[in-house]
């Protein structure tokens, strides 16, 4: 049976960006259809894994304390991206973030003070009560009350582009393919990180060993389809944001709980029981992203973190209990790495540790001496049994490659803007986040550009 729909606007995807666009367009009077590739239980893409968004504010606002002005926000962005950003779009997102918070609240999202263990974000990031899935649920309720139709397990396969217009949307649904001809289309289908073959094109076969932190449904089908038709791209096609997570995490959708925050208090080795990088280079929030790539560069893309009893309670617990042993050799055996070599690596490290004061929450300068690579902070000898170990693997958060858009979120084709195609969220974030990551900025980009895309598409469809 062919899917019947008289929708003016088809939105591809069912995460934060798609929902913000849908609500905005429906409020402007447009008939909206959401095609969400995932089943209902998994709706909401990576947005269902999020916990907060980064929000500019002049004075205390809702759960946000103090102030966080546009200049500081932009500075922070420049720091993490090393300048790889589009200043116009970036400033647009930052300036609009302030009015997002009340808009979100009006559309059902509830906020909570920053979670225990995340005090450093209390000023800059507003946390969603219940996290991203609660946000997504609230938006679906609001959207459906506004008459937005939603099809789950509706995977878009192709957009027909003819002379700077999308003329048809093809998708599969309930085992059959369908075609719709809406007036306008919004692409909000995320990145391509769940397609490990595609990741392997950039990373080589190593990518097969990567774990994907979020949804298995973001395979970049629509992104690829559009790029193949000459749509302009932004962002480095070979890069992805990756962090080091617990090696026992599921292949997909492990989410936040698989993160490991113990690296600064540990010794990290590869499968040959050799150290390969300074574990204490900087505070963890500033360093956790480089460890994804560090581990990816090791044999079999795996690392092993070793701590001793005195460090066990210094970091947030993670989902799996650590491997525990009474000696380093036993730990090595349990983790399947060479025992003798690990013992000598640890002994060598211990011998290089120096006396000094240990401060877990700040750069304490407690460094090793004469060791390569050095450990430049928090270097305490690993001596107190029981010893604990975790395996580390590369966990991909998102990819950077995206569609190029202008400040109205309109997608840029080979001959300028595509008349009736807009994009929002991860699928266009590469122009603003060219590299690195600023915690909470993904949801800000999705909310700001989702709303812009919804407004523009509705305006187009309404006349």
């Amino acid at each position, binding site marked *: 049976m062919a899917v019947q729909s008289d929708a003016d606007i088809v939105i591809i995807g069912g995460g934060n960006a798609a929902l913000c666009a849908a609500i905005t367009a429906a409020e402007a009077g447009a008939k909206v259809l959401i095609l969400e590739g995932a089943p209902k*239980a998994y709706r909401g893409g990576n947005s269902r894994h999020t916990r907060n968004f980064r929000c500019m504010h002049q004075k205390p606002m809702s759960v946000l304390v103090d102030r966080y002005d546009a200049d500081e926000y932009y500075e922070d962005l420049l720091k993490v991206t090393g300048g790889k950003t589009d200043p116009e779009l970036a400033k647009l997102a930052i300036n609009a973030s302030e009015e997002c918070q009340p808009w979100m609240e009006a559309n059902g999202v509830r906020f909570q*003070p920053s979670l225990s*263990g995340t005090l450093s974000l209390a000023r800059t990031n507003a946390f969603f009560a219940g996290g991203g899935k609660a946000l997504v649920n609230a938006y679906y309720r609001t959207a459906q009350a506004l008459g937005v139709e939603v099809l789950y397990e509706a995977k878009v396969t192709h957009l027909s582009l003819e002379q700077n217009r999308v003329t048809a949307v093809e998708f599969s649904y309930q085992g059959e393919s369908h075609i719709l001809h809406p007036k306008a289309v919004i692409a909000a289908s995320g990145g391509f990180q769940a397609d490990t073959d595609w990741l392997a094109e950039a990373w080589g076969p190593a990518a097969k060993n990567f774990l994907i932190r979020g949804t298995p449904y973001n395979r970049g089908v629509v992104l690829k389809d559009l790029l193949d038709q000459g749509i302009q791209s932004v962002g480095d096609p070979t890069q992805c944001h990756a962090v080091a997570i617990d090696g026992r995490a599921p292949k997909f959708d492990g989410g936040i*709980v698989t993160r490991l925050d113990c690296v600064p208090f540990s010794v990290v080795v590869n499968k040959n029981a050799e150290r390969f990088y300074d574990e204490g280079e900087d505070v963890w929030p500033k360093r956790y992203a480089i460890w994804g790539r560090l581990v990816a560069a090791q044999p079999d893309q795996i690392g092993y973190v070793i701590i001793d009893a005195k460090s066990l309670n210094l970091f947030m617990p993670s989902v799996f209990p650590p491997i525990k042993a009474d000696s380093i050799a036993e730990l090595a055996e349990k983790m399947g790495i060479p025992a003798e070599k690990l013992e000598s690596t640890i002994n060598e490290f211990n011998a290089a540790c120096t006396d000094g004061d240990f401060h877990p929450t700040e750069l304490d300068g407690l460094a090793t001496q004469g060791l390569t690579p050095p450990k430049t902070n928090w270097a305490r000898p690993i001596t107190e049994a029981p010893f604990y170990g975790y395996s580390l693997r590369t966990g991909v958060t998102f990819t950077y490659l995206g569609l190029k858009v202008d400040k109205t979120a309109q997608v840029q084709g080979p001959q300028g803007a595509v008349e009736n195609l807009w994009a929002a969220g991860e699928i266009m974030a590469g122009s603003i986040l060219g590299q690195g990551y600023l915690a909470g900025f993904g949801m800000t980009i999705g909310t700001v550009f989702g709303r812009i895309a919804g407004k523009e598409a509705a305006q187009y469809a309404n006349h």
Partner: protein
Amino acid sequence: MQITKTIEEARRQVEICNACRYCESFCSVFPAINRERHFSDGDITQLANLCHNCRGCYYACQYTEPHEFKVNIPKAMAEVRQESWQDYAVPAMAAKTFHKSGVLMALAVIAALAFILLLFQNAAPAAGEAQAAGFYGVLPHNAMIAVFIPAFFLPIISIAISLRRYWKSIGGERLRLAHFTNALGSVAKLKDLSGGQGEGCNFEDEDRFSNARRWSHQAIMYGFLLCFASTSVATIMHYFFNMPAPYPLFSLPKLLGITGGVILSLGTLSMASLKLRADKNLGDARVWGGEMGFVLLLFVVSTTGLALYMLGSTGAMPALLAIHLASVLAFFLLTPFSKMIHGFYRLASLLRDAQIKAKL
């Protein structure tokens, strides 16, 4: 033993929550989780009795089935909680029976009814006289007391023993006044039922927040307390002021009783309808019948009580009185072995939570 398996499963899930923390603002359970790194069996039981099954954390969870982590905190907590009530109950067998079965609960009422009718028969003067003499014409006051005093105090003794065992198992310490003010403050407002943002539970309509369950529960609790107050006042008037029933409409027992009865009837009815709409799999499905039976029992207690007020001087009175007394009798006797017990455990857990927080 079953309980260890249930606790094991709850502990597995609680450890996931402790790594996640997204639900921190929903209720008292998550802050209590996030204070700890390791969870003993007693800790898990304590957490379970802090949970009131609002389900907010289920619908907000990115790890519910079909995800392989299979997180379902409301269910895991309900099962541990349920088993703690059953295991600490005296006699435990009675709890295991009645919690699970609404049918057995109904049978208990019928048995109580037969018993009361038997009493009537032995006490009854001629039918016409009875009506004229009011309730005590049907069942003399002394006989009523002889039945209801033990029916009231035996369960209290049973509950006291259970709570002592429970208090020990969760590591409870000496109580101070401040613990009570803190804990009772949350109970009076059913603070946790607000869902952390005043919009209530995710109970009867999936992820929609609604205060329906909160208000129904408030109605049941306050309705019940008013009815209880009415009976207590009447007892005091009877013994200390020599003012036996029946009382006029504008007397304290009647005013309390009628208001309480109406509120309790409405509350139980609305709770039963909410329960019918809620997803059974987000609670302890094994005791759904017993829980429903208990709500309906309270409904029968309150409506027959109201009916007695209205029809107390008609020919229907003896029959109504029998049903009412039977349901009240069954209710008292089943208190340690029915959902009614949750209030006691929950209060104990809130007290324990207040103790722990006071030490931070």
